[in-house]
């Protein structure tokens, strides 16, 4: 299946990735972003809050936005 993966960390990116069927949100994160810390990110599937063990489906839009993004002066 194909999923739109969006990371709003650092430079930010959004691209379509291939994923095996029954991939969970957590597996997607670990595969493409890094060690999974659910409490550190706003996780959204199709712009709705999602749990770590939610199964992804073909065409889903998954986004990870850090809870801490430091502004400056």
């Amino acid at each position, binding site marked *: 299946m194909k999923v739109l993966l969006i990371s*709003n960390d650092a*430079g*930010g990116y*959004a691209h379509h990735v291939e994923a095996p069927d029954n991939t969970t949100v957590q597996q997607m994160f670990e595969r493409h972003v890094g060690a999974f810390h659910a409490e550190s990110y706003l996780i*959204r599937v199709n712009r709705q809050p999602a749990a770590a063990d939610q199964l992804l489906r073909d065409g889903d839009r998954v986004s990870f936005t850090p*809870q801490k993004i*430091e*502004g*400056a*002066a």
Partner: protein
Amino acid sequence: MKNEIKQDYRAAVEMMQSLQHMSDATSMSHFDDSIEQCKRWQRRLEMATQRNWPTAARDASDRLHGALDILRMRATHSIDNLKRQSRSHIEPTATLIFQEIQALRGEFDAVTIERSIQRLTVTTSSIVLDGVLLGSFEIRLNWKYIKESSPFDVIALEPNEPASGEGVTHPHVQSDSLCEGEGSDAIRRALDEGRLYDFFCIVDQILRTYNSGSAYVQLDDWNGVNCRSCGDTVDSDQALACSNCETELCMECSTCCDSCCERYCEECASSCESCGDDACKMCLKSCDDCGESFCPSCLYEGTCDDCLNNENAENAKDEPEQPCPAVQPVCVGKASVPA
């Protein structure tokens, strides 16, 4: 509801048009204008130099310098645009933007669209950082300028400004402008791709994060008072107000009047010309004779000690001399007695 959906879709179409208005052609024509300006001032400079007109040459040189600066900025901008285009990215569509707007309505307290001024506004929930209540904010995206840098404003709805920072409503917001910090690239990318939902979420998360290493005003100083004399921030319970003009000061910058024991700012306090004690301008009085300022203890019935002494000396001089009593000469009228 139906009207809201219709309005959201129309706004999405307009935003899409703004995003498509990449204006590469426009920016290249600006680039051409800049080159022409440089050539023009270069010709003027050469002409002025050949004719030995130093003032005109200096003026042309300054203007050439300015034109080259503008050219450099536009070149940098064009390079940035090229870089942005060459990155892999999602092509925004009106449908995608419409879905983004719909999702915003579920994520934020309030979402407002003002098509007449091409503005999409979301309202955050109340924000508290390190115990300092900053209230909720409006994030206003001006989609007409969506391709430009920082096309959005951040407005505090219940501003809790620190005393020491004018226009600061958040450690990272000054004059309604957010310093994006490490969120800068992600914001730019989200806007370029029409991912408005991500854009607003990123800005919201920046507002909920405190970076003590780079803040307009540190949260530790938020509830402090800025000393109007030295500029230092002091806790509000340690600040002192001038008893006359109410200017807020730190302890070091306030002066205690030795006469009334109240504290004053530099403007409202001075010192006695005689004893040198600190005194406020209300306690200091002018000597009726010399006009200098003295504390109450150095004035006697409106006159200072020096003037009193001078007066006494003058008085003494003016008094007529008393005739000396006659003194009998030694031995007068006495006869010597033989031993």
